[in-house]
Each structure stands twice: as structure tokens, then as C-alpha cells.
């Protein structure tokens, strides 16, 4: 029955006598699973906030005139959307929620290598978030999430310092999480769990953590320099003070391009898990997927200049950055082909996480291919800083990262909460999100090639039809995001009990109870098989057992 109690001793349960003790047991927890839940709540709050800002922007753009908002308010709305989504949702999203919850379970450990550092990183995240929020409350910030100088350092009259402080503190939270993942993966693997037996989610989280640890300090220092110039007038970026405005862009993109891979790589890991489980077979080309993650992490450090093709950098720099950008497309393509090949001769089921995974592949292919357009300098000159770029990175960030995040949340929801969500609503909302997403962002490719610049509050009449289409799509998309919020929350009370392994998946996390006990494993497991050790006849047996009326 749906209302039966969960198995006892789960990490969610406590024998705390008072409410205060219960609150304390959460706020001072060092359990990686509880920290993941704390992150889940905070990150979803920021996602809704960022989504609200996006809605305001889309509503304003229905008409070519600026009739809903003043220019200043509009600029603050898209800046808020960008900063919240990038720094407080996309970058921490999958690592902090799914990574925190799963990595110790997947490697067969009782917790992270540094549990207290893990909790500290959540507090840093919250402090950073409070800075950014207070900046919004006290009048907002209007620099765009990119903080280009000398606008941000000298000319903007908004709360630049508070916002920078938020992003700066948040950066340390990322670094702490990254260090924790790296050390945990190196030192805490269960006996017999060799590197090539690791689930691909661990591989991609490891690659992500390397980028986080190497790149985040650069953006921290850069933002600090902006603050120093702004407060004390030290000439670093503003030529009027003797600085160099392009220096900021080099430093900023040296982090912010790898940051794109911080956002998407964990998504690749999630998708690998989902495709394998719901095809009931070993992932195709395991080593190629694992190494392509590492290749992306490394090459991703050498392409930052492709954000600056029209900034005034030399022709030679443009050519070199364009060339390396072309190369980074290859490992991404390898992944897509291997996922597709995994479907061959599998026994595929259309459960909600699988729908998200398939949607991810479709959208990521479009996002990736349009990335090649932008990597060709001659085309980039025309479409950079237009809606073409906006559409491209939303296909990668929303179509990629958010689809993977939602797919992962659905997949591991039974493990995290012990209960199943409503499969029918799950499928419906996945389809609504897919349709709404394409309606919102596909017209923006056309807008961009027509020449509609981004960050425009008012625009020429001829772009209106496509803007209206895009805004209509965003309404559908918003509905698609709200539905899971409702049925996932309801499932906490009404959901069917999940059992230890509802998907019949491989992986150490499915060998423990749902929700897992506080210390994960009674006995540290000894691993003798690779990840995705589905027997060769698993797919055949699964298909043979299917009867009309079984789940699709």
C-alpha cells in the first residue's frame, strides 16, 4: 500500500525528541545524503527564481516596444536570470545534488573523504546565494552575467560588488565540492573497484571536479580585481585608468568556457547511466565515453578565445581558437554515437528517466552542431551577440544540463526518498518540456541569423512574430517544469514504496535499501564485476517477460 511506512534506519529518519533537535540534525549533518537534500532544496529554489526572471523577460519581449518594464528593470531581469541560473543552478546543480548523494554510494564508501568540508561547501553556497539575492533586493544589478569591463568596474550604477561577492563565495563552495570528489574517487573506492569498473557518472564527475579545481580560482581572482577597480579605482581593466578592457574577457572566459563543461559533463554521466539501465545492457564503448570526458575537460581549457572573435583579438588568435574549438566537437560526437549504439539490441523501456535521456540526445545534438557554426569565425562574426548564441547555449544548458538533471532526479528519486513518483505524469511532463523547449528556442536561431542582437529591451517590428512564438513556447516550458514539482512533492506521502532496486539496475547504490541507511553499507562491498554488468541475456529475458499491461 502506498501509505505503508518506509523501512526504518533510513538516513531520512531520526530519533530526535524536539523540533529544534530535528532542525539541528539537518543543519549540522555531515551525511553526504542529507547534504545532497539540503542542496536539492536550495538549488530548486534558485531554479524557480531564475525561471521567474526569465518569464518576465519573455513577457516583455512579446511586443517590440518596452511597455512592461523600464530599460533598467529589463536589464536587471536578464542579469538576474543569467547569474542565478549559471552560478546558482547550472554549475552546482548535478554535482552538488546527484554527485553528493551518489558518489560515495557508487564507489562503495560510507561518506565523502571530507564530510565536514562537504557541509561547509553548502554553507558557502548559501552565503553566496544570500549575497546575490540581497543584491537583487537592494535594486538589482545590470551588468549581464558576464560582468564585462569597464562597464561593470566603472560605469554601472547597480549592486555590482554584492553580486560579485556572491559569485566569489559560491566559487569556493564549488572548489570544496570538487576537491572532495577527487579525493573520494582516488582514495575511497571499495576493494576491487578499479578505475575501469567505475560507473560513467563517477568518471564524468571526476573530470568535472578537475575543471572546477583548476578553473574556479581564476574567476575568483578576476571578480576580485573588478571589485578592487570599482572600489579603489586601481586601473586594471578600465583604459581611462590605464587598464586593459580585453584582459577581463580573457580571464573571465578562461574560467567561463570550462564552466560550460562543468555544467554539461555531469549530465553526460547521468545520461550514460540512464541509457544503459533502460536498454538493459552494457553501455557501448565504455572506454571511449570515459576518455572523451577527460578529452573534453582538457581541450575545454584551450578554447576560451572563441567568445572573443569580434572583440579585437588578432587574426592569428582567432584562427587558433577556431581550430581547437572544432576539435572539441569530436569527443562530444563520440559520446552521442556510443549512446545511440547502446540502444541496438537492447530491451528499451520508455520510463520517465529514459524519455529525458532520449530528449537530451536530440537537443544536445542541435546544441552541439550549432556550436560548430559558432566556432567558424566567419559565421560567428555575423551571429555572435545575437539570439543565435542565446539559442545555442540554451540548447546545451537547458536541453542538455536540465534534461539530464531532471532525468537523474527521476531515476534516483526512489533511492533518495524510498518512494516512486507518478509515472504517467512523469511521461507527460517530459514530453511537454521537450515540445515547449523547442518552441521557445528554435525560433531564436532564425532571429539570430536575421540579426536580432541579444540583451535588447526594444527591437524592430520585423522580429515580433518570432519573439511571440518564443514567448508562447516558454509558457509551455514553464508548465512542464511545474508539473514535476507537484507530483514529486506529492510522491513523498502518496508514492508507492520503491524497494531497493526498482529499475533492476546495476551499481552499488541499488544494493542498499531505499532510502539508504545513514552509514550506507553495513559491510564495505567487494567488487568483482565492471559497471553495467548486465548478463548477455538480460535484454532478451526482459523482453520475454513483457506482457500487455506491463510498463511501457
Amino acid at each position, binding site marked *: 500500500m502506498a501509505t505503508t511506512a518506509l523501512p526504518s534506519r533510513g538516513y531520512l529518519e531520526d530519533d530526535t525528541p524536539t523540533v529544534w533537535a530535528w532542525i539541528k540534525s539537518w543543519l549540522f549533518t555531515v551525511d553526504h545524503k542529507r547534504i545532497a537534500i539540503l542542496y536539492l532544496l536550495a538549488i530548486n529554489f534558485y531554479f524557480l527564481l531564475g525561471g521567474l526572471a526569465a518569464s518576465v523577460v519573455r513577457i516583455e519581449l512579446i511586443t517590440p516596444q518596452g511597455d512592461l518594464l523600464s530599460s533598467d528593470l529589463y536589464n536587471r531581469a536578464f542579469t538576474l536570470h543569467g547569474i542565478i541560473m549559471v552560478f546558482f543552478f547550472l554549475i552546482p546543480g548535478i554535482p552538488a545534488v546527484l554527485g553528493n548523494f551518489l558518489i560515495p554510494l557508487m564507489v562503495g564508501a560510507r561518506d565523502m573523504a571530507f564530510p565536514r568540508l562537504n557541509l561547509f561547501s553548502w554553507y558557502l553556497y548559501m552565503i553566496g546565494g544570500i549575497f546575490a539575492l540581497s543584491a537583487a533586493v537592494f535594486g538589482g544589478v545590470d551588468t549581464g552575467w558576464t560582468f564585462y569591463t569597464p562597464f561593470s568596474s566603472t560605469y554601472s550604477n547597480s549592486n555590482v560588488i554584492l553580486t560579485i561577492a556572491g559569485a566569489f563565495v559560491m566559487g569556493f563552495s564549488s572548489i570544496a565540492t570538487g576537491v572532495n570528489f577527487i579525493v573520494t574517487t582516488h582514495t575511497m573506492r571499495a576493494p576491487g573497484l578499479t578505475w575501469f569498473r567505475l560507473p560513467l557518472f563517477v568518471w564524468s564527475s571526476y573530470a568535472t571536479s578537475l575543471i572546477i579545481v583548476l578553473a574556479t580560482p581564476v574567476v575568483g581572482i578576476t571578480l576580485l580585481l573588478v571589485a578592487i577597480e570599482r572600489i579603489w579605482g586601481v586601473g586594471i581593466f578600465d583604459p581611462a585608468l590605464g587598464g586593459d578592457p580585453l584582459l577581463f574577457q580573457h580571464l573571465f572566459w578562461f574560467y567561463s568556457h570550462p564552466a560550460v563543461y562543468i555544467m554539461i559533463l555531469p549530465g553526460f554521466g547521468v545520461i550514460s547511466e540512464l541509457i544503459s539501465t533502460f536498454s538493459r545492457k552494457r553501455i557501448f564503448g565504455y572506454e571511449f565515453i570515459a576518455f572523451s570526458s577527460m578529452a573534453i575537460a582538457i581541450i575545454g581549457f584551450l578554447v576560451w578565445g572563441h567568445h572573443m572573435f569580434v572583440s579585437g583579438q588578432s587574426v592569428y588568435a582567432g584562427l587558433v581558437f577556431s581550430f581547437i574549438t572544432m576539435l572539441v566537437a569530436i569527443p562530444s560526437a563520440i559520446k552521442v554515437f556510443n549512446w545511440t549504439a547502446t540502444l541496438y539490441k537492447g530491451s*528499451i523501456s520508455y520510463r520517465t528517466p529514459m524519455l529525458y535521456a532520449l530528449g537530451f540526445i536530440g537537443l544536445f545534438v542541435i546544441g552541439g552542431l550549432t556550436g560548430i557554426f559558432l566556432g567558424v569565425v566567419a559565421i560567428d562574426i555575423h551571429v555572435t551577440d545575437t539570439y543565435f548564441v542565446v539559442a545555442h547555449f540554451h540548447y546545451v544548458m537547458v536541453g542538455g544540463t536540465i534534461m539530464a538533471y531532471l532525468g537523474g532526479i527521476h531515476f534516483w528519486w526512489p533511492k533518495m526518498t524510498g518512494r516512486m513518483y507518478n509515472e504517467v505524469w512523469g511521461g507527460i511532463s517530459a514530453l511537454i518540456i521537450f515540445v515547449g523547449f523547442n518552441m521557445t528556442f528554435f525560433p531564436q536561431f532564425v532571429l539570430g541569423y536575421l540579426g536580432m542582437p*541579444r540583451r535588447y529591451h526594444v527591437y524592430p517590428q520585423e522580429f515580433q512574430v518570432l519573439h511571440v512564438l518564443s514567448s508562447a513556447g516558454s509558457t509551455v516550458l514553464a508548465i512542464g517544469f511545474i508539473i514535476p514539482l507537484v507530483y514529486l512533492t506529492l510522491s513523498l506521502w502518496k508514492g508507492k514504496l520503491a524497494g531497493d532496486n526498482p529499475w533492476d539496475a546495476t551499481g552499488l547504490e541499488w544494493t542498499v535499501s531505499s532510502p539508504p541507511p545513514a552509514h550506507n553499507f553495513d559491510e564495505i562491498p567487494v567488487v568483482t564485476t565492471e559497471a553495467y554488468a548486465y548478463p548477455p541475456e538480460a535484454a532478451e529475458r526482459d523482453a520475454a517477460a513483457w506482457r500487455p499491461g506491463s510498463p511501457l
Partner: protein
Amino acid sequence: MPDFPLFPEQASTFAGPIDALYGVLIALSLIFGGILPFIILYLMVRYHRSQKADRRNQPEGSLPLELTWTIIPLVLVLGVFFWGAFLYIDIRTPPERNLEIYVIGKQWMWHAQHPNGKRENNELHVPINQPVKLVMTSQDVIHSFYIPAFRVKQDVLPGRYTTMWFEATQTGEYHLFCAEYCGTEHSRMVGRVVAMSLADYERWLTTPGEIILPDGSAGAGGGGSTLIPSIGDPMALAGAQLFTNLGCVGCHRDDGAGIGPSMVGLYGVETRMQDGSLVTADENYLRESILNPGAKIVAGYANVMPSYDGQLSEDQLNQLIAYIKSLSDSESASTRLSNAQIASVVADELK
């Protein structure tokens, strides 16, 4: 549905080649992005758990297959890269002979000055079938000069010059956008580019229009003065006067006998510096040498020039640079005014 285009107008020599490359990229994308989803859909249906299918002998990986789908995309993207690279080099290499127009961006307007001194705001008049080179700088934050119909865009930075060139092919009016976010009124930092026949352009150049002051403000100040033609001094002549008035001419003598190097034939030439490096004397070098003379010292000269930082407007800097460039223009060498001639003209006026 009126006014619902899918592709922008083609109005410059770049538009055709860029659209062709764009079309090829779309075609390649359709091969990958169009076929792959159908393969996925086919596999999804064929191997759905409810379907009877042969699921024995599952492959776990295949090196030949991995190599195939690594090498084919690699060859394709490299092909696209080289195509795009040659086009890019074209876009960044202006022809020797071109019409130079100086552009200043500021929050939130564009200001342009033509060689004969005519100024305009938020509009750019250009002749068709004629290479036009824009020499651009900003007075405050970073802007970006973008003409979608010409497929050209270039960021405009404070404290240095960036250049861009194009050759319009169709007469007409086109959008001019600021493409780099620059603050409150960013979306109103727009205007129009008017492409006209050469004859019309020359007529326009010599037609008095609305008066535009050097700081870019239009028709300000005294009521009666609006009748004064807005055609100012030709930029090079204005620069020559500045060159004399500021005292530059005392050291930078044409015959090269002064304390500073001669400006004749300097522009665009590689010059040896004190530290042995070679520097091409482009707009940015000239600008730096005026505002921060100690940054690069020409071999054989001493670091004695005072800085002119803060004493010159962007506009005056443009004029000075236009003058120095005119000293390298072999075409006009015969008609060029020498420093001495200008000095005497100014001296006459002072009497």
C-alpha cells in the same frame, strides 16, 4: 504574413560567401542532426521491450566503428574550419585603397566623421561598390558595431582603435545595431546605414545638413548657428592644424632633423624600437605614442615627449591620426601641405 523573413538581406560582398558557408553547415547538420534522431527513433521502436527481436550477440564496443565516427566528423569539421578560416582572413584584411570613416561609440549613440569632415549621428552613409574601412573607438564602455545586412560586426573598445571593412553592393537602408551590451539604453543605440551610389554619396558629403558638434551632440547651442553648414574642415586638414597648434611640428620635422622622428611615410610601416623590436605603425601605435609616448621609443630617439593624455578629445585624436596617415598617402603626396606651409598659413591667420 507580411514582414516574416527567414534570412536577412544580402547587401555586401561578404553576405553571399557567408550565407553559402552557412547553407553548407545547415546541410551537414541535417545529415547528422536530421538522420540521427530517426535512427534513435527506429531503435527505440524496434528494440522496445514489447517487441520480439533478435537480442543475441550484443556488441560491447567496436574499434572500427569508433574510428569511423571519430574520423569522418573530424575530416568534415576540419574542412569547414579551413573554408571559414580563408573567409575570415578576407573579412579581416581591408584592401589597400579604401574610404576611411572614423566612428566613435558612446553611451548610447554612434558618431561618425567622413574624410571631408562631415559628421553624422546614428547614421552611416556609405557608397556602394567601394571598400569602406571604419576606424572605431569608444569614449566609455565596450560597444559593438553591427550591420546584419552586411554580415559584419566588430567590438568598439575604449582606449584603442579597432577596424572593420566592407563593400556594400545594394543601395538601401539597413539596420545598424550596437551588439555588445553597454548599459541602460543599449537597445536604443541603433541607427541606420544608408548605402548610396558613389555620385549620391559625394553629393551627400557636400550637402550641408543638421549641425553636429564634435562631441556628437546634434544642433546644440546658439539658435542662429543652425544655418552654418555642418561640413567641417577635412579631417586631415584639421589634424594638420592641431599638429601645429599643439607644437608637434617643432620636434617631428618633415625632414627628419627634429628631436622626434618624422611622420612622413610612417603609417603602416614597420619601425625599429629602442629595445630592438619591430612595431607596425598602425592607428593603435600612433594613439599610444600620443597619449603615452614613453611606452615605445623609436630607436635613435630619446624619451622626451610629454604625454597628451587628457588634453585631446577622441575626435581630435582621430583628426591627428588622419593627418599623420595622409603623410603616407603617395596619391596625395603632391597636393599634401607640408608642415611648414601649414605653419605659415596659421601664422598668417594669427596676424
